[in-house]
């Protein structure tokens, strides 16, 4: 005669066996695709959010290692204090560019990226021994280096609208990595855009920025417009006035671009071996090169293997500014279009061709 414990045990096991039979392969049955036209969410109130990207846009770079090279040009440095003007030939300006942009939060409702960059600009003068101008000597003896940190926040408000905010701080100067310059000379940039993503093929926005792309501190409006044609062959990637490109897609792993980028920042420089202490009316620590260049270029981006892409760039480097300002104690000022603060040194550069190659780990 069965006792209660035995009955319970058998019920337990039999129940388990029936469960096991229920967990079978679920794929081998018929499919009627028409039933999927009208499905509801199980939960109420599901919210969709605008994506940060549009269809067909070039892939975002997580890690980038590249090299930049400008051909020969002349640099004419204006006089300062007891130092007269001097024109010198630069054989090339070149250096390594390393950057990273890592998504620390990456989900539908919020993307936060933290990034950094190290750029090195090496000035190879044709006859460095002939340099008598302190700025030229500084450029010849030391590289110009940029160390930067940035953060980008993409916050979609709903399916269509979004806010994009970017903050950056850069240390720019002729220091080396073993001997940083004081943080008080850092430049601070920011941008805020309110935008719309009306479809998978279009995204636009307007905003304001605090920027050093023109070399000195500026506050300017900005305009974002990313678009892909219905055939996915053509597109635009614009963030004006900083950069703008027309894109032609050969296939999703191979793209061509034509456009421009305005690059710039404000660089502190040292004496560079020529003592200016007795010959200037201003401390050399207060001088900053307002470096800005407009690069018009062709670019080819291609997938190499996996998520590693190569980007090749060739174009024309048009100097926008290489003047020097007095920035006492690193406390910058806003000249804008109507300011009359005098320049410390007025410089001009002729314009060469330039080339850039980079290897990039791109993002999903």
């Amino acid at each position: 005669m069965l006792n209660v414990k035995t009955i319970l045990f058998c019920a337990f096991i039999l129940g388990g066996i029936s469960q096991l039979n229920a967990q079978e392969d679920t794929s081998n049955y018929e499919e009627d695709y028409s039933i999927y036209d009208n499905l509801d969410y199980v939960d109420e109130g599901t919210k969709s959010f605008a994506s940060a990207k549009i269809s067909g846009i070039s892939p975002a770079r997580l890690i980038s290692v590249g090299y930049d090279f400008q051909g020969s040009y002349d640099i004419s440095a204006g006089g300062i204090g007891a130092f007269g003007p001097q024109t010198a030939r630069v054989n090339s300006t070149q250096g390594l560019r390393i950057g990273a942009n890592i998504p620390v939060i990456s989900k539908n409702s919020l993307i936060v990226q933290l990034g950094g960059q190290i750029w090195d600009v090496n000035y190879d003068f044709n006859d460095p021994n002939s340099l008598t101008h302190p700025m030229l000597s500084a450029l010849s003896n030391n590289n110009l280096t940029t160390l930067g940190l940035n953060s980008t926040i993409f916050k979609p408000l709903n399916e269509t609208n979004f806010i994009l905010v970017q903050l950056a701080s850069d240390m720019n100067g002729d220091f080396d990595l073993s001997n940083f310059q004081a943080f008080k000379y850092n430049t601070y940039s920011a941008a805020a855009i309110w935008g719309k993503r009306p479809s998978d093929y279009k995204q636009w926005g307007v905003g304001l920025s605090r920027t050093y792309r023109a070399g000195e501190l500026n506050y300017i409006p900005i305009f974002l417009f990313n678009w892909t044609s219905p055939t996915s062959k053509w597109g635009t990637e614009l963030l004006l006035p900083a950069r703008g490109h027309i894109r032609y897609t050969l296939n999703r792993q191979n793209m061509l671009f034509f456009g421009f980028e305005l690059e710039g920042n404000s660089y502190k420089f040292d004496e560079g071996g020529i003592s200016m202490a007795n010959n200037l009316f201003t401390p050399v620590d207060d001088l900053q090169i307002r470096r800005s260049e407009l690069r018009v270029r062709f670019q080819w981006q291609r997938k190499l293997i996996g998520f590693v892409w190569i980007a090749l760039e060739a174009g024309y480097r048009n100097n926008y500014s290489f003047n020097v300002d007095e920035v006492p104690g690193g406390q910058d000022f806003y000249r804008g279009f109507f300011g009359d603060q005098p320049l410390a040194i007025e410089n001009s550069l002729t314009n060469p061709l330039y080339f850039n190659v980079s290897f990039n780990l791109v993002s999903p």
Partner: protein
Amino acid sequence: MILTVIYIFTSCEKTQNVNTEIELELSADGPFFQGGNSFMVDLEPDFSKIFEEKTITSQDIKKINIKKAIVSFNAEDSVNFEGFTSASLQLVSDNIPMQSIAVLNPITSSSNTIELTVSNEVDLTDFFKQESFTVLLDLDFKDDDYKDQMILTLKMDLAIEHKI
């Protein structure tokens, strides 16, 4: 020095190419509704049936490519491919990632046989080194079909490179 020696050894390894045909019966239970339906069969690779020399095992296999995939209904079933829009062939295993190996889209044939376009890149070696794996054929039906069961024959021509 040692690395160089190893490289010379492996580069001198002799291999042989063999073409073989595998025939399988795939089935699915109905009723079948308009849209995708999956036909499956489990395959246990048996190299003794492929090679005359019984000493060749899965460890001797260097590469397996698919050269041809032909799917057909039995003539006596009176079914042809007019009622189907596409076919996609995949291999599934518990131990290695699923792999798509052949496709035909669109299906324009009104006969009871179709030949799929095979992948030129995929290597099936890892599947054939398993004790068993599943061959999965997804067929897209134009309309509902209320048969209880449907059976297809799949013939695969394979090119096998193996060590001698």
